[in-house]
């Protein structure tokens, strides 16, 4: 049996050899039936067997003539059968490969290399098989033959793999860790940097010069224009019907959908890029993305995949400074920061005019190459100091706002040829010198010149003379926008006083004239007195004030109520609960000299308003020593819309103690507000014949119980 198999095998091998030579000679005339195609497609599966078996056989063959094993019968047999079966399988694999290579989509150099090295394996192995028992076949031949066979197997295997998986299949995952530098938006070319990467990633696996599926190559512009078996890719009459678009937009389960089902599909963005590219009907191969119109859809989609312009760091041609040196130069008032991680460029900011000296700039000698931005705003930098700035040869941005420089000094900055922006707002630069020095800054793009002696006309002339520079002006008070002053303030800590109080009015704007009245009339800027510090009030007084300044509209009139309250109870107690949201300081609210403001429904304003709605406002005031009282005032709020009204009735009771109280007075009714009347704060007061008491009871009822609110922030007892 064994002998029979070996003879049969040897004969089969010879037949295969001849058959393959025949096939190779008449390759051009082959017509392959479908069933044979299927056999051909087994090639990628079968090829692994001859590779492994032949390598094993060659390993054994290599050591065949070693003394200690040369006579081993098993070794001999094993080598023989491995070699025979390996060579036979190699032959069958070559046959299948030749059939497969005739299918569409296989062409190119890689295929040729694979084909001929594969054929070579088969024939070298066949030759070894047939001559290995000749008398001249010695150790040297065996070793050389084995080495050559294995080498050719490796080479052929490599080319085969390259056809199936692509060129850098193995090294590709590594490439992820070393991403290629992205092209910045400005430099990106439509085809090379936007379209081609999509084609290479998702299409070129099958449509490359080596694989040519559908006779289509998608790796270079000429082949793309040529199209494939099914015709041209582009339809210039109706771009949206272009073949390429049809194929990528077919449903995925459609046979002609590209990329084929099972292969990585185009992402939405990728599909959109190809679509917009073809729809534009200009099939850009050389144009830059940035040259497309601003609102062009291809440009906008491309912008999302390209490195965004905002993130393109300027590439600097100098090395980073020593980190330790930079750290040493950083002080509390001098900050030196790299522009970004791994950027060699530094930004220097100096703060605090009190500690500034030019030495702070001179000390930066060690990093003068790296400084690209220098912020000296509001420091007493003089013209002489600018020489020290000129050492920063790579400076791009310089801020000198509100420094002591003049244009004469700017000459010193001329060595700064990279300077892009210069801010000299609030300095004493002048036209004459500036016009001479500006053309020297070739790369200057912006200069801020607001609040300088330059007039608008001069800036216009400078602009005409220096078209490449943008001149930044700013707000000029030409009187066209006349504003209304805000009303005066009162500075008194409290406007509730015992005997007398100075009136302390002020206004935040310098040079304002405050006019006021004490008699309740509207102040004006003719009759009403100008406020000075010498105004004093001795009784309840409403101070009305208004602010005036030339170039401004007068302010609104503002009212300040000064309240006299000579007597302060020693202890206070509420008879009824206050409204839950208007607790203020409880019983102490009424004599704490703190006044509320309008807007009491708002939590932040509620603090000083004590309020009742469902019960009366009842207060008992006790005095350690008897006091003589003759009047009581209530300071209350009226806000018609929200139902805050004056009290209904107010009564004051007095006596030696709580058990012996007599009614002292009942207040006259306060006038009710008109419908929709603006909110106001009012005073109501009632007096009686002086009486000495140790206890007072004050009862005020809401205008309408359970419906209207009564809010009181202070009472005045005299």
């Amino acid at each position, binding site marked *: 049996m064994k002998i029979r198999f070996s003879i049969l095998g040897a004969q089969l091998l010879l037949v295969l050899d001849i058959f393959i030579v025949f096939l190779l000679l008449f390759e051009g005339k082959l017509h392959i039936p479908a069933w044979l195609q299927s056999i051909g497609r087994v090639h990628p599966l079968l090829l692994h067997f001859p590779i492994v078996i032949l390598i094993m056989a060659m390993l054994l063959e290599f050591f065949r003539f070693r003394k200690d094993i040369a006579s081993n019968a098993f070794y001999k047999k094993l080598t023989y059968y491995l070699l025979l079966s390996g060579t036979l399988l190699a032959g069958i694999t070559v046959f299948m490969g030749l059939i497969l290579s005739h299918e569409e989509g296989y062409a190119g150099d890689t295929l040729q290399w694979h084909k001929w090295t594969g054929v070579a394996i088969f024939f070298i192995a066949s030759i070894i098989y047939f001559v290995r028992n000749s008398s001249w076949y010695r150790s040297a031949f065996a070793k050389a033959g084995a080495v050559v066979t294995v080498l050719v197997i490796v080479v052929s295997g490599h080319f085969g793999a390259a056809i199936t998986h692509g060129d850098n299949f193995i090294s590709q995952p590594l490439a992820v860790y070393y991403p290629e530098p992205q092209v910045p938006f400005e430099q990106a070319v439509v085809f090379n940097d936007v379209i081609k990467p999509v084609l290479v990633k998702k299409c070129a696996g099958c449509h490359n010069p080596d694989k040519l599926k559908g006779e289509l190559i998608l790796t270079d512009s000429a082949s793309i224009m040529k199209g494939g078996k099914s015709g041209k890719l582009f339809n210039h009459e109706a771009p949206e019907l272009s073949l390429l678009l049809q194929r990528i937009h077919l449903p995925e389960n459609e046979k002609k959908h590209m990329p084929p089902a099972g292969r990585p599909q185009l992402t939405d963005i990728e599909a959109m890029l190809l679509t917009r590219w073809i729809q534009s009907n200009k099939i850009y191969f050389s144009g830059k993305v940035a040259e497309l119109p601003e609102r062009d859809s291809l440009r906008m989609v491309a912008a*999302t995949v390209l490195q965004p312009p905002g993130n393109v760091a300027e590439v600097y041609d100098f090395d980073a400074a020593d980190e330790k040196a930079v750290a040493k130069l950083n002080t509390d008032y001098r900050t030196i920061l790299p522009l970004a991680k791994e950027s060699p*460029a530094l930004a220097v900011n100096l703060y*605090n005019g009190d500690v500034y000296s030019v030495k702070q700039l001179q000390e930066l000698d060690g990093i003068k190459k790296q400084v690209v931005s220098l912020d000296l705003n509001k420091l007493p930098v003089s013209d002489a100091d600018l020489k020290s700035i000129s050492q920063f040869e790579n400076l791009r941005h310089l801020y000198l706002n509100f420094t002591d420089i003049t244009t004469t000094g700017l000459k010193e900055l001329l060595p700064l040829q990279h300077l892009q922006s210069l801010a000299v707002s609030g300095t004493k630069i002048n036209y004459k010198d500036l016009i001479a020095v500006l053309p020297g800054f070739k790369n200057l793009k912006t200069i801020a010149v607001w609040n300088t002696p330059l007039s608008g006309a001069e800036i216009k002339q400078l602009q005409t003379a220096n078209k490449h520079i943008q001149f930044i002006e700013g707000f000029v008070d030409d009187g066209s926008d006349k*504003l209304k002053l805000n009303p005066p303030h009162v500075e008194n800590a409290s406007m509730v006083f015992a005997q007398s109080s100075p009136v302390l009015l002020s206004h935040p704007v310098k040079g304002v004239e405050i006019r006021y009245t004490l008699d309740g009339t509207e102040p004006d800027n003719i009759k009403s007195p100008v406020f000075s510090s010498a105004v004093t009030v001795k009784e309840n007084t409403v101070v009305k004030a208004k602010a005036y300044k030339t170039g401004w509209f007068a302010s609104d009139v503002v009212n300040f109520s000064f309240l006299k309250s000579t007597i302060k109870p020693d202890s206070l107690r509420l008879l009824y609960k206050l409204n839950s949201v208007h607790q203020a300081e409880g019983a102490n609210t009424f004599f704490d000299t703190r006044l509320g403001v309008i807007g009491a429904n708002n939590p932040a304003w509620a603090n000083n308003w004590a309020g009742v709605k469902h019960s009366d406002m009842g207060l008992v005031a006790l005095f350690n020593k008897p006091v003589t009282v003759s009047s009581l005032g209530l300071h209350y709020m009226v806000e018609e819309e929200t139902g805050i009204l004056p009290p209904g009735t107010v009564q004051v009771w007095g006596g030696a103690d709580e058990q012996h109280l007599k009614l002292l007075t009942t207040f006259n009714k306060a006038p009710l507000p008109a419908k929709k009347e603006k909110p106001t704060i009012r005073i109501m007061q009632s007096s009686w014949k002086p009486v000495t008491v140790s206890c007072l009871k004050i009862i005020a009822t809401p205008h309408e119980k359970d419906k209207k609110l009564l809010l009181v922030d202070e009472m005045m007892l005299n």
Partner: protein
Amino acid sequence: MDNEILEHGFTWNRRRFLSAMSLGIGSMALGSLLMPELFSSGGADEEAIKAGLPHFAPKAKRIIYLFQNGAPAQQELFDYKPKLREMTGTEIPSSVRGTQRLTGMTSGQSSLPLVGSFVDFKQYGNSRAWISDLMPYTAKVVDDICIVRSMHTEAINHDPALTFIQTGSQQGNRPSMGSWLSYGLGNENKNLPNFTVLLSRGIGNGQGVYSKLWSNGFLDSIHQGVQFSKGEDPVLYLRDPAGMDRKARREMLDNLSELNEISYKEMGDPEIHAKIRQYEMAYRMQTAVPQVMDLSKEPDHIVKMYGPDCLVPGTFAANCLLARKLSENGVRFVQLYHQGWDQHGNLPYEIAKQAKDVDQASAALVMDLKQRGLLDETLVIWGGEFGRTSYTQGKLTKDNYGRDHHPRCFTIWMAGGGIKPGIVYGETDEFGYNIVKDPVHVHDFQATILNQMGLDHEKLIFKHLGRRYRLTDVSGKVIRDIIT
């Protein structure tokens, strides 16, 4: 017993040791396959800890965020809807409202009539953007700002929405945007806090702001927002008590820091170092803050630009002026809150007042930064936490109505800092109710802001309680279309 255990230890022979070890190595190998970062000594975290520099060259170095707290109605300010005006009084079509969740304040309303703006709009600048007559000064700087009309958020009530826009999460306890930036970028001026907060309020219906909005969350407490108040002491407790001079203070701090260093060696709590640094900064702030906060030297033309209120501490205008001064002095993030934009009712009256409070100063801030050449590197943001409904809340009368909360769309604007000037981005439908073009989610907005500051929102992370946190949580994309 102890001896037996000890003895057992000695009875291990070589074979047993090796086989046990191979099992150990095997399981470690398996483990490393299942948890890829098992042996990477936490490289990603180290990266995070080393934060303090931008990931790439930034467009903006500083941010001023003019937060309009309470949610300004887009229909009355920036989103011009003539059709809505025509349809005033008609019921909102259910196709427009869809399945939108309403707040408890209007869900019980039997009718939801549409209401158009009571105020007129005009077009301004080269961008021909529509701006309401309530914003005459903003209209003047329209070519310097980028109006985004398609912002949308997830929350429907003030606190969660505010917290969401500030911290990227509705629940709170996460670091505020300013804290993230402080963490990501470090100090520019070591004598001032990186993140400062200024509050003001208008006459309109207000909603509270709380210090949790400028909290550092789980970040080092050095990154928390410092509130500057309007009183005599803008920063509380910064002033030395009577009788203590600078020298004494210095000695006291030196000694205190020695003590703190000792307890750090004992406990190892990094918060101790944060504390030392905060004391040091407070010491330097003692001289730096009064210089910055002094408004008395501001010239007349600045007062005219910002409006006379800019000299009244605690007003929005004064805060805008202070924001410029702080920003100019290297404060990375100045956060303003202006309260009073919650116009559920009485909208025409209140919004006019609110707009007057902020319009001039907001525009002045943009102009002022620009004229100093600082607008290129300073990002100004103006906006609230959500929008307001196109139907009325409460009774609709000829001259009075209200609007309820509306998270589906709202308008903000940005200026400077590498944002395209003079553009209008995004679009809402004719009712101003749904976004029809270029929606910008709050996380997209945050991602864009970080991007302008040179930070990749997916890389600015902090590991806390076993999870990596970002300002943009797990979503967000940079809106490239509005970047120069």
